[in-house]
């Protein structure tokens, strides 16, 4: 379970600050893109940016990058299922 035992170092401050910076930039993108009238694509854009941010958090802050493929696969599976649930809900909200 503990990937660290196999000799991984904790991520460096540079990397963590870099990820933090990227999250800040993406937050700014979310705010900016919400001002641009794109119609339905506004939702798509917001979701896409949020997905990128979630990816950064799980991979680096939550160390998923260093875990084995069982863990990565499980997390991916849960995200796919979440995407299906949200996607199917759009059969309703997108066509009302």
């Amino acid at each position: 379970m503990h990937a660290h035992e196999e000799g991984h170092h904790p991520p460096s401050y540079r990397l963590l600050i870099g990820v933090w910076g990227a999250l800040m930039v993406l937050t700014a993108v979310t705010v900016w893109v919400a001002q641009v009238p794109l119609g339905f694509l506004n939702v798509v854009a917001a979701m896409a940016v949020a997905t990128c941010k979630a990816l950064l958090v799980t991979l680096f802050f939550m160390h998923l990058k260093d875990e084995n493929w069982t863990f990565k696969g499980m997390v991916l599976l849960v995200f796919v299922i979440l995407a299906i649930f949200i996607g199917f809900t759009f059969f309703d909200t997108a066509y009302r």
Partner: protein
Amino acid sequence: MAEIPMAETPMAETPMAETPMTGTPDGGFWTTPPGRSTLGSWLLTTDHKRIGLLYLWCILAFFAVGVLLGLLIRLELIAPGRTIMAQQTYNAVFTLHGVIMIFMVVIPSIPAAFGNIVMPLQIGAEDVAFPRLNLFSWYLYILGAAIAVVSLFTGGGAPDTGWTFYVPFSATTSTNVNVAVLAVFILGFSSILTGLNFIVTIHRLRAPSMGWTRMPLFTWGLYATAWIQVLATPVLGITVLLIFAERVLGLGLFDPARGGDPILYQHLFWIYSHPAVYIMIVPAMGVISDVIPVFARKNIFGYKTIAISSLAIAFAGSLVWAHHMFVSGMSDVAVMVFSLLTFIVAIPSAVKVFNWVSTLYKGSIYLDPPLIYSLGFIFLFSMGGVTGLVLGGAGTDVHVHDTYFVVGHFHYVIFGGTGFGLFAAMHFWFPKVYGRLYNLKIANVAAVILVIGLNMLYFPMYLLGLEGMPRRYYDYLPQYTDLHVVSTVGSWITAAGLALMAWNLWRGLRHGAPCGPNPWGAATLEWTLPSPPPTENFGPVEPEVTRGPYDFKGIEREEVVA
């Protein structure tokens, strides 16, 4: 499973010690370990069999309460106007009946009780993968149940929203919804942990010689169920927390006046609660798949299709939730998509029914109680399943939506299905757990009374629904009286059947005839152990799986049932 070589297993001839004919069961895992008090050895146990029994006893106690509330509802409805209780009491009673039956009885029933008792034995394991986590989930269940009871007697009175907690009513009612949803949240975690435990157990702790295609179908059903428990239950947790947030913080998530969406609540609620009906029914289908071959003395018809249909139900059943929302104001596109998907889920369920019936065909049938309950399951579940299609068809649903038709459908599927599956499991594994047998004739009589009672109780509801009687109503027009009277009388017959069944089992565990390891002549691994099984199950030696789970060649039924 013709491809599996059928080697002969010598059945472990375990000499049964002469047990006295009275008192509680003894021997095996019932023996209190030296140096511990009896109560302590149960409350701190990590033995999957004891934890399963703790679940079973609690579930049966809550079931008794739920039945009592159901009888009160039926009594109130025997005539128009007030009969035995006021409107607000009636609202609280049907909410309580729903919450207790769904979250404390039906969802944990077969997986938490019989999954725990039987599954590790079926796969030749020493215990579940995380025994302490297993005990912890039982304590979560008890904590959740205790908080649900607290919600009745504190705050602004017992919740009156129905078990679905629909907004906007649940967000504005002055009754104690806050505490009730917290109880549901905690009960959900208990269910998630049990599911997780079972997935890991089935993957990691099977006997080395038990491949996936040699697993008993009950274990297959639990495996499919466990995935739904792990993946869908968190959505319930989120949903009830959002109600809590809406009530306490006034977020306006579901309030259109503030940009919220009340239909979003229904989506979130049913994303869990439709798959939840498969948490309820799939393990019961597993029980039936294990029982029928044993009493037809014949290999199951279509082992692989049954196993795969469990997974298919778990997957497809997660994509049909909005069939509860056809008249909610949802978009027409969504109505069509979800109606189509709902029809698709009927296929794997029908595959199972077809396979069970085909297994019986040309079998040499023993009409013992587990089989009678299983036949009751097939009949009642089919009655409920077919009417499910009426509700899944978008056009017909508009006519019967929110009427007694829905109540009839649900009770046929859940009481006639899951309930009968649970009763079949209780009668099938009773001798394994207690080392004794109940009276077979009385058990059969109780089963027949129950089938008659259930049909009388719920069939009038179909007719009431078709005639337009709305569900949940406290009062009704005089033209509905006759059918309500029939239904209420049916509830008394059902109660009599339940009482007879319970008394017979109780008498059996105290005075029943002692039996050997394998009274029914079954072929799965749990029957190779003595009854009751020892605490450490198979001990340090991995059991050798030399035959398919439904290969009865050379296995005899014991004289005690002959």
